[in-house]
């Protein structure tokens, strides 16, 4: 297996690759700055493949973080992957939630329950809980969802991964009294995404890539306002297409 992982959902863009067989080889690149994703993604992919001594036609798997995260970042990654696979149909594509990627990269001990919390703006959070036992399995205990700080009381995790406003992170850390991963260490990285490829419970294969779109987490603001005002789904949007 030659796998490539692409993470574009935060200010940090990262790409990682792995060639299995023998001792196996990995390569990774990362770059900070949300506005640089569009310019840097293909060159980073090329660098990673070059370091691995391979090329795109030899790649068997591409994994992509599918949100929630930056809307623009999600589309930079998704449109690129759709096109790359259009040129090499043998490539399997899988996707993992950005929150799962954060959990996988947090250095959790085997069998740890990891609560991942990220800012969803407007005073809300995205939260998910995973039982992480890499490289064997990942179990989703609670799938990513919009949450309020008050709704997170239910279960005490073994590890808290938090990328949210400072006060809120401190409040959650006080509340749970468990090891905390925060700041840069909490960011989702392609190398962690790579560790979820072909792992039970990890990245999920995408069968119909043309139909696939990222998990934005929220509708567009104009759509949300329209639906709130009219009490029904906006026509010609996925929520209305069933």
């Amino acid at each position: 297996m030659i796998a490539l992982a692409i993470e574009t959902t935060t200010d940090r863009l990262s790409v990682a690759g792995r060639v299995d067989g023998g001792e196996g080889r990995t390569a990774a690149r990362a770059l900070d700055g949300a506005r640089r994703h569009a310019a840097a993604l293909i060159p980073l992919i090329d660098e990673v493949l070059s370091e691995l001594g391979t090329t795109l036609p030899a790649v068997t798997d591409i994994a992509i973080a599918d949100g929630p995260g930056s809307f623009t970042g999600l589309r930079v990654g998704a449109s690129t992957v759709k096109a790359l696979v259009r040129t090499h149909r043998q490539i399997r594509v899988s996707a993992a939630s950005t929150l799962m990627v954060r959990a996988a990269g947090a250095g959790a001990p085997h069998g740890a329950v990891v609560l991942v919390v990220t800012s969803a703006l407007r005073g809300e959070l995205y939260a998910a809980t995973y039982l992480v036992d890499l490289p064997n399995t990942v179990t989703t205990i609670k799938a990513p969802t919009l949450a309020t700080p008050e709704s997170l009381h239910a279960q005490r995790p073994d590890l808290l991964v938090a990328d949210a406003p400072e006060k809120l992170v401190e409040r959650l850390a006080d509340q749970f009294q468990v090891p905390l991963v925060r700041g840069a260490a909490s960011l989702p990285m392609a190398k962690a995404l790579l560790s979820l490829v072909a792992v039970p419970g990890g990245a999920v294969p995408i069968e119909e890539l043309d139909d696939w779109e990222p998990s934005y987490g929220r509708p567009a603001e104009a759509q949300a306002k329209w639906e709130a005002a009219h009490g029904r789904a906006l026509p010609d949007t996925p929520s209305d297409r069933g």
Partner: protein
Amino acid sequence: MATRRILGIETSCDETSAAVLRLEDGRPILDSLVILSQDVHRIFGGVVPELASREHLRTIGPVVDRALAEAGIGATQLDGIAVTAGPGLVGALLVGLMYGKGLAYGLGRPLIGIHHHEGHLFAPTLEDPRLAPPFVALLVSGGHTLLLDVEAWGRYRLLGQTQDDAAGEAFDKVGTLLGLSYPAGAAIERLAATGTPGRFTFPRPMLKQGWHFSFSGLKTAVLRAVRASDDLERDRADIARDFQDAAIDVLVEKTARATLELGRDTAVLAGGVACNRALAQALSARLGSAARVATASPRLNTDNAAMIAAAGAWRLGLGERSEFTLEPFDSGPLPGLLRD
């Protein structure tokens, strides 16, 4: 016989479009053109950028696949990828641009980023292969109003541009005032055809002054007329007629004057507003035998990928290539723009 095939991709606003242009010894033949318009924006009376971006991502793959299928080729038979880099909605542009980069990288083919306005200038050549510079071009759409002297491909002298609203924007805003759905250009033209001219006297801003344009005063005058009307149902067609006449008078006067003063034998109308048949007829009448008017069919005048492929074919033919670091831009001058 040398055959080259260029894939064009256009996602600058609310149309997802792909086209395959075949060049037979340099002669362009449009093998396919797929344009998918996003209807959702009608509800909002204008384009919602985030919704446009999401829809582009949903449809870009199928649209490109259909363009290839209609051209009867596989992606590996392409010789180059031309994609709109701007100006436009950056989020929307990003989808097409990243898709184009991915295709170019995956196929090992050259990539060329195209300025949307340059694409519009090339559109008429797809149906009129003899059309070549020098000519004067009026580029009128919902986002732009530019008067250009096209001295040669890649050498564009800016003569004038709008100082406020674009012409198409004025049509859309007046359409909203008259209760027409977005986009309103075609509906205003149909309505105006049933109206009586001369009932309303709207201003012709900057008609004789230079080559720049202004449409906000005209728009405001229409707003006042609508508010003053005691029976808008009765007045709607007449207001549409006099608004259209005023807008066309300004566009025609400046384009014709530029064509005649510069001694060009052709005036090109390009962009979505160029679909307005009254505009082309008025310009033809004004120019008489002094110059001909060239404009593409409506499908090629509105945003489409065929025009991007045509401009891309020309630039790729010069040996130009874009790097994979190419980024989208929301505004910026035409490449090769000359300013006096």
